[in-house]
């Protein structure tokens, strides 16, 4: 009994409720006529799509910069890479890696500046990160119109300038990573092996990195800055490094997302993308100050599972689509829970 109590206390009620909710959804699904194999396959694909974006939260949380609501900044770097690779007409796997290669220096520069900014505003990172994300997306809206891209696959047909709101990558690198060693079981079940391998590779690298000298120093900065300073760790450098890492992972994350989705979403597309990623990480058991790779994997699976299952199951049960509302309540409720919990522990 005590062990159960302890488990509940550690995991927190919201997480358990969400996990139970998901299990119930999967159990109910066959009875209301939702094909389980298709649903499971959808969940897995979305899990792979969003995994890297959620992973991008980890370095910043670990170094004490809080939840990375500024994820759109990394996404923008990724979008620039993706759009440029389409402009260069790079195809297949080389195409995806071209996109990533181009995105990397942009992400590093943006992340570096973003990191310097966050170092100046310790304690207020999250609010400022949110608005840095928003303003950079709004700024890029202007840039997408002005930047001199000319590929006919991307610009508005009648004007010849300005990128379209969504750019299809079907002819270039749609599912280039996903399809590596992918297989089908039956008609509906598709398993994107390549995307999973790539995600797990990044998770593995991150896991190892967190155990290196630098990674440990980063965690120390997050959990006890005074102790870190006393041990001779340069706090600001570690924080900047973590922000660069987060931004870079955000850039890779959006490219993985796009190659599976098949479209590059520009303009206001990345505006709200930080929130699902933050919510997924928190559902996985992370707090504002601590996050692990397990949190990422569990959280992404639970959150994306709910996103996939609720529309189909609730639709068949109630004949209405409440999924959007449920998504808003679950994801923001989770963030709210995490934000109010931290101070409780502290005081």
């Amino acid at each position, binding site marked *: 009994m005590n062990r159960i109590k302890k488990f509940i206390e550690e995991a927190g009620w919201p997480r358990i409720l969400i996990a139970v909710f998901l299990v119930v959804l999967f159990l109910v699904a066959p009875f209301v006529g939702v094909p389980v194999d298709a649903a499971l396959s959808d969940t897995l694909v979305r899990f792979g799509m969003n995994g890297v974006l959620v992973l991008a939260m980890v370095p910043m949380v670990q170094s004490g910069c809080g939840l990375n*609501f500024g994820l759109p900044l990394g996404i923008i770097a990724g979008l620039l890479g993706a759009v440029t690779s389409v402009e260069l007409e790079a195809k297949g796997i080389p195409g995806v890696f071209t996109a990533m290669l181009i995105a990397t220096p942009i992400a590093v520069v943006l992340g570096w500046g973003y990191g310097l*900014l966050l170092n*100046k*505003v*310790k*304690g*207020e990172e*999250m*609010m*400022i990160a*949110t*608005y*840095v994300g*928003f*303003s950079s997306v*709004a*700024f890029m*809206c*202007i840039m997408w*119109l*002005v930047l001199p891209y000319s590929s006919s696959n991307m610009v508005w047909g009648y004007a010849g300038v300005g990128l379209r709101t969504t750019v299809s990558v079907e002819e270039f690198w749609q599912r280039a990573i996903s399809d590596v060693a992918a297989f089908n079981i039956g008609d509906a079940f598709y398993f994107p092996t390549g995307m999973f391998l790539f995600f797990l590779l990044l998770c593995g690298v991150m896991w190892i990195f967190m155990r290196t000298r630098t990674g440990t120093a980063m965690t120390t900065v997050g959990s006890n800055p005074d102790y870190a300073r006393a041990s001779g760790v340069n706090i600001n450098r570690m924080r900047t490094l973590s922000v660069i890492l987060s931004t870079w992972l955000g850039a890779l994350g959006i490219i993985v997302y796009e190659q599976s989705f098949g479209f590059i979403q520009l303009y206001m597309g990345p505006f709200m993308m930080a*929130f699902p990623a933050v919510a997924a990480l928190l559902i996985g058991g992370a707090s504002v100050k601590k996050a692990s790779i397990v949190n990422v994997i569990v959280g992404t699976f639970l959150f994306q599972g709910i996103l996939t299952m609720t529309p189909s199951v609730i639709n068949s049960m109630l004949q*209405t689509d*409440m999924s*959007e*509302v*449920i998504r*808003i*309540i679950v994801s*923001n*409720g989770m*963030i*709210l829970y995490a*934000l*109010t919990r*931290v*101070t*409780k522990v502290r005081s």
Partner: protein
Amino acid sequence: MKSSSGGNAVKLFCMRNAVPIVFLLVSSVGIYYSQFTAEYLIQEMLTRLARNSFLVLSLLIPIMAGMGLNFGMVLGAMAGQIGLIFISDWNISGLYGMTLAALIATPLAILFGWMCGVVLNKARGREMVTSYILGFFMNGVYQLAVLYGFGSLVPILNPELVLSRGYGIRNVTNLDNIRGTLDNAIELEIMGIHVPLATFLLIGLFCAFIVWFRRTKLGQDMRATGQDLSVAHSAGIPVMRTRIISIVISTVLAAYGQIIFLQNVGTLNTYNSHEQAGVFAIASLLVGGATVARASILNVFTGVLLFHLMFVVSPMAGKYLVGDAQIGEYFRVFVCYAIISLALVLHAWRRHADKERARAALRGEAGGAA
């Protein structure tokens, strides 16, 4: 410090009001290029001043209590909208309708505000981001209620309001029954420009309320709480209660503000109107030269004026300047968010620098370089 005291005063004035001054310059360039007539602009500014000031004013009290910008004011806006949905359902028009909507909205706003206050008390030190997320969260709850509850659990009589499936309010609710009632309650035209006098009177009344409120015991308690939580606590001020009251007042006022806003606009976007209320109000206040910790009534009016001036002018200026209205459109969105980030960064920066200085002072002269 060598310059004369007059020069210093000018410098200080410019530093304190950097944001409004920059805005004024950008807008004047915009006005020049947009080719609007002065008459049009004055009319537009008067309308927008009447429309938005109340919402922005509702932000003042939490700032006084040291809780930063109350992003949770969207909760109040939601309460106001629920009131409006009911009066359009019962088809009560004119000033009576508005008053009734306000009466319905009040208890709801008190409830929301109390809830918001309790949550924010649990998240001390990160009130802004928490109230921001709370706004999103309650947006979900609001949608759940209005999209699924209204017409099924809550009886709605007028079928025109309800979606064709039988429950849930339509995306757009027409507010013809109260459109402009307050603005036109007292007719006044000066040189062909319509002045919404009654609305301005109400706003003036409210400003007087704020000035009076600052002098009351409660107002003083709030300022003390805003200065230093622990000092206020040891002085015997019920800190947590004071903070909750400040948020409740702000939420209720935001509800009234949203009702005034929507009676001017005339249509209610059931699922969007409240979302913009918060962002625009906060951006306006900051443009007026307010900071996260200090805001005055003057900031409100300057802010609304400057922000909306840019808002009106930028699409046309963008069109004539670069031949693309879309760029002007995006530009104003960008400015809206950039100004909020800038204000937040400046505030955090200053606070950080103060903290460093305090620590350096503790260490004495030798450690000052850290």
